[in-house]
């Protein structure tokens, strides 16, 4: 895990906005940088606590191994699903070309 920088910068916000495909103008970048800095300040408060003996927790519930048996369940009607899509072709969802690739 990367150590948290002292304060979130305008460049950080611009980078995250790009990843989230958000087009922010100059004013918005400025405003959101301030707002995000305040949100992150809460995390900094937590960092101030002595937590060396507390194991990292991914989840608030004291639960593990919620599993389901490998048994087929109901599927959706294709016609109904495709009817809800903005555009379809040849039994498939038709989408604009997205630049970038799948992971």
């Amino acid at each position, binding site marked *: 895990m*990367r150590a948290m920088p002292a304060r979130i910068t305008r460049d950080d916000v611009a980078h995250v906005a790009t990843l989230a495909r958000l087009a922010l103008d100059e004013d918005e970048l400025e405003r959101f940088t301030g707002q995000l800095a305040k949100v992150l300040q809460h995390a900094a408060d937590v960092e101030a606590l002595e937590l060396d003996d507390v194991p990292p927790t991914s*989840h608030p519930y004291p639960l*593990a*191994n919620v599993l389901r048996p*490998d048994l087929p369940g109901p599927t959706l009607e*294709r016609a109904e699903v495709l009817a809800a899509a903005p555009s379809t*072709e040849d*039994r*498939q969802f038709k*989408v604009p070309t997205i630049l970038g690739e799948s992971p």
Partner: protein
Amino acid sequence: MTTTSQPTDSLGQPITVPDSADTFVFDASDGSRWELVCGLEVHAELATATKMFSGAPNNFGDEPNTNIDPVTLGLPGTLPVVNERAVELAIRFGCAIGADIRPSVFSRKNYFYPDMPKDFQISQYDQPIVVGGHLELPSGHVVGVERAHLEEDTGKSTHVGGQGRITGAEYSLVDYNRAGVPLLEIVSRPHVRSPEQARSYVAELRAILLATGVNDGKLEEGSMRVDANVSVRPEGSDELGTRCEIKNLNSLRSLGRAIEHEARRQAELRVAGERVRQETRHWNEADGRTHTMRSKEEADDYRYFPEPDLVPVDPDPAWIERIRAALPMLPAARRARLAGASGIDPAAESIAVLVERGQDEQARAAIAAGGDPARVVVHIEQNLAGPGGADLDPSRLAALVALEVGGQLTATQAKQVLAEMLTDPADPAAIAAARGFEAMGTDALAAAVDGVVAAHPAEWEAFRTGDAKARGKLTGFFVGRVMKATGGQADGKAVTALLRQRAAG
């Protein structure tokens, strides 16, 4: 030597690269010598009935968009639930390669692409279920495994226009049948040192996945997909060069070719004083080159965070032990066992082929029944590959081999009798007799050889007095004539022996 901070893998373990006698070392255009360092990532679809997080069927080749449910489509309000069978198969694989099974956590990998309707893929990040383990290749080279983690597959996009590539495509069509299919991503350490080892690693991995029933091994259907991380360094150096990830490797042949091409490309860049950029490259089978796909995003750019809708998977040790105890014998052990029974080198292609086809038990039984080991293995490899071949009673195969080794049948005749034995339950000797493959008596054979020798005095003189080379050529001539004279019933080896005997006498 100055100490620098040791590079580490995704789990903080130091990265080491083993030496290998088979390391691919090559000359760049300026005569400098370079060596390959390679790691492989294999995505294996798990052989479950349903998807990773929902009950929609996991079935290749169905009508587009029929194996979909609200979870597959990421509809609002849907929640994922982990498929127990997928966890079991991941554990099974981990046990098979001697890995640790760890408590694991699912994370969201965020990205924007229409092949995942949720706009994120549920994967495992810093706490994968399988850690460590290794594969021993038939050559004896050992490739360590860094990790194997559970995740969900993406949907299938078909790009329309632009020659099927994303670049220049007009639009894309998406089929979500594959979205959510359970995947195990198996990440090797950079222990692969040659294109041949890369092919061998994938073949061995496939054999293990097949033997354990974790995956169906169908590379051609994409149920196993391979990416290669390739870097080069000067021969003898211990540096870790910048690596490129190669995608679109659809066959073992492409894998080997792409790795070699990429290694040479990187060495030429460095020879020219340029640096290798860390990026993802696409292998083009047609032009035999790799092409830039995208510069590598930093892992942080996927903004992984723990999946809030799933709790950790922390398998009970007793469950893990039950899975481990139920593992079948693995390919490496089966190869060693067959090699021991047959006296054939465990690295021989024929041994690997028989084990992969599941015919090693048949071979062992035929050898145990008295069959000559080398002939048993050859017949199973070459003549019992087709339908019904694996069902042939090993004792009948042993009986056939005995006829062949005893000189009653030639190799060609034995092959014909064997083909008939698949449908005819009769004794091999009876089938041979019915076909007129009567044993050619020693006297009859000798008479045939003498007849041919007498009919070709000039050739015989050349054979008798010639050097090894001339003799080798004329052996073919005489064996051919004797075969013709006996209607193919003579055994080539016996004829050769007789010719030598006559010439010496």
